[in-house]
């Protein structure tokens, strides 16, 4: 295999594909590499940890068709460090020569046969507007769990809902739910899938580029065991989680007697300030809500205490509820618009954070019980 390619284009491709490569040891050494294949002027770079596969296609000047498996991290680091301009890859039996200008590197490669054989990506079944998907992912993925002890909660539920689709994630302490209008991208007969949050985090990284272009779309297809997203020359394929997502509907209280309406930035600023006193993840922020405003208080045994008053509209009984400040910030940040609404039942039932006028995004949060 031999090709020539612009340095920046190649760095992007190598880095993107490497995101799927596990930094921890894996079963096969070849999995710590990326598969680089030249076919005519089409260059394909693939990285995988068998759960997540990222495949990048770019244009290059093909000189000789073929493939090699290069050490992912090293190859990306080498190319990134080279002088700007054209970079040449030339692979032999078990070596790869990377050269540019007056630099020349020869690195050992893995056997191509040791790299898993991955199917060609399925053709897209539907196209989702990239901008709204990016927004929805930003709002929802943050609530997913990263605790491997509860594998189902490390996934994001994608389900048909009414005329659109709904994304739901929860780590059992908070739950984010977003409805997207438009046709469900799920194929006939599939009601819901559970996509690992990790894959969607990687997908988010790919999307900002597409977001600038308001007409850009993300291709999407679902198989029995996996799902593929396609955006900007990159195919991201992820294994789907197997199992039944918790029944989240029963968690949503039927109604809220108390409603706080407050400026989003003012609340966020105040939360971030009082959070400075939080030293461990069990220190909560208390919200004392009364007509006209809300007082935020953090009392940290060893450090000290802080309080801050924020103007707000409040309807309901005077009430104090405590939350993990980071969880609350996560929810408030995710709301679109200038104002947020915090709905509460009492100090131990789920609260909801949402925008004042619409509820296509809802963030349910369990309080912290303080004695």
């Amino acid at each position, binding site marked *: 295999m031999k090709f020539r390619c612009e340095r920046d284009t190649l760095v992007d491709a190598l880095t993107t594909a490497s995101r799927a490569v596990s930094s921890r040891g894996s079963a096969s050494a070849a999995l710590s590499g990326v598969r680089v294949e030249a076919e005519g002027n089409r260059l394909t770079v693939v990285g995988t940890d068998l759960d997540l596969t990222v495949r990048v296609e770019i244009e290059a000047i093909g000189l000789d068709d073929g493939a090699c498996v290069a050490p992912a991290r090293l190859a990306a680091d080498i190319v990134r460090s080279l002088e700007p301009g054209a970079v040449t890859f030339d692979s032999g039996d078990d070596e790869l020569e990377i050269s540019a200008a007056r630099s020349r590197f020869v690195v050992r490669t893995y056997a191509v046969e040791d790299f898993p054989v991955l199917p060609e990506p399925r053709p897209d079944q539907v196209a989702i507007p990239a901008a709204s998907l990016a927004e929805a992912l930003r709002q929802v993925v943050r609530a997913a769990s990263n605790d491997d*002890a509860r594998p189902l909660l490390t996934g994001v539920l994608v389900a048909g809902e009414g005329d659109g689709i709904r994304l739901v994630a929860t780590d059992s302490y908070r739950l984010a739910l977003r409805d997207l209008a438009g046709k469900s991208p799920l194929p006939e007969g599939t009601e819901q899938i559970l996509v690992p949050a990790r894959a969607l985090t990687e997908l988010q990284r790919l999307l900002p580029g597409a977001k600038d272009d308001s007409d850009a779309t993300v291709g999407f297809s679902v198989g029995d065991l996996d799902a593929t997203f396609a955006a900007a020359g990159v195919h991201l394929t992820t294994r789907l989680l197997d199992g*039944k997502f918790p029944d989240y509907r*029963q*968690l949503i209280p039927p109604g809220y007697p108390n409603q706080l309406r407050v400026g989003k930035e003012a609340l966020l600023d105040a939360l971030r300030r009082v959070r400075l006193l939080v030293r461990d*993840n069990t220190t909560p922020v208390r919200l004392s809500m009364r007509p006209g405003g809300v007082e935020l208080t953090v009392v940290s045994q060893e450090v000290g205490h802080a309080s801050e008053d924020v103007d707000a509209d409040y309807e309901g009984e005077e009430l104090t509820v405590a939350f*993990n400040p980071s969880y609350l910030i996560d929810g408030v940040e995710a709301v679109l618009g200038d104002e947020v609404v915090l709905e509460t039942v009492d100090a*131990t039932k789920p609260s909801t954070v949402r925008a004042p006028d619409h509820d296509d995004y809802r963030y349910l949060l*369990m309080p912290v019980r303080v004695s």
Partner: protein
Amino acid sequence: MPDGPTPIVEGEAPGVDDCTVLHVDMDAFFAAVEVLDDPSLEGRAVIVGGTGNRGVVAACTYEARAYGIHSAMPIVVARRRCPQAVFLSGRYGRYSEMSERFHGVLRAFTPIIEPIALDEAFLDVAGSRRLFGSPPAIAGAVRDQVRADLGLHCAVGVARSKLLAKLASRAAKPVASLEGTRQGAGVVVVLPAEELPFLHRLPVGALWGVGPATGAQLDRIGVVTIGDLAAVPPDTLVRRLGTAHGLQLAALARGEDPRPVEADREARSVGHEETFAVDLHVQVDLHQHLVRMADAVSARLHEADLAGRTITVKVRYGDLSLITRSHTVATPLDASHAIGLVAGALLEAVDVAPGVRLLGVSLSGLVPAGTVARQLSFDEVGTGTEDRPRRGAWDGVEASVAAIRARYGQSAVGPATLVGPAGLTVKRRGDTQWGPRAEPVPDLSGPSDQHEGKA
């Protein structure tokens, strides 16, 4: 008289006033208590630690030591070496009563006491000198008082550091031989100037942190005594033993041990562990024991008003190899059911097929339970999730169980898992426990476990 330092220093030996650390260690404690209570055992080889062939020697008289028997030795080996010995299963209630009296004697001399075990403690007597005289004089007085109050002997080591005081008390012990037991010095003082000569003569295994594995490593480079160890460049030790361990041993070999005597140390963990009568190979069997231990750990956390974030499961296989697995949760736990769930998941991931000899459960990362602000979870509302049943319901159960037990005793109620043909089995006597209000019971599973608790 053991060769080495002066047993009792009279007058103003140089630096004697700096030797404010005392290590007091009862002689053959459990066995000595048995002899005290039954004078017919006087002069016989008495071994405490079980009448079966399972388990290890918890204590033995000097007459038994003459046959090469020592604590932590498997009972079956002891029986082979000295079949005529008297084997007793031990009366832990009686030992803790005597232990209470022992520590009471110590408290009369100084408030700065670091209890190490039922029969062993470090004292700092820096503030007691005006009242009771020089450290060696205090050591002698402690020894006389223990003898007077308990009718038992102890050995006292006096030095500037815990390391040397402990080694000195060992040097003060009686020495067993088949010809008869030779009385020890009772009190041994290691003066500052004598520290290195005293230390360097001892075998390297006498150092804290040198077990069989490290010992073998050191033996390979020709290190037999602590003096040999002191002569090895620290770099070499670091290369062989790793940075932390290597540097620590190098410092100990130079007699450097900065650890102060810490009174009222807060427990760092609360745990239970148990050696089984036969190795267990099946998860279900082990799980039952695990539930019982989680239940006992929870009961003690409740008593001490503590909760912990890190749950550790310890498994020792039949070949004595040891593994531990731990998990840290966001919100500190103290409930039996919750601890059991986490511990169960940890055990689930352990291969038990080779046969498990000892199982233990402990909680660390302890905080006062009252101050815990608890992040509530969706698991506590609604009907629960597929992978985790509704949890809030358990709060009520735990509270009721605690109330029932407070009134009717620990075995009045317990997890259904623990009901067998013989009824409900809760905490078992002989379980090794540590942490606050642990019924003090010897560590029957060998010295390597002591780091878990207070060592």
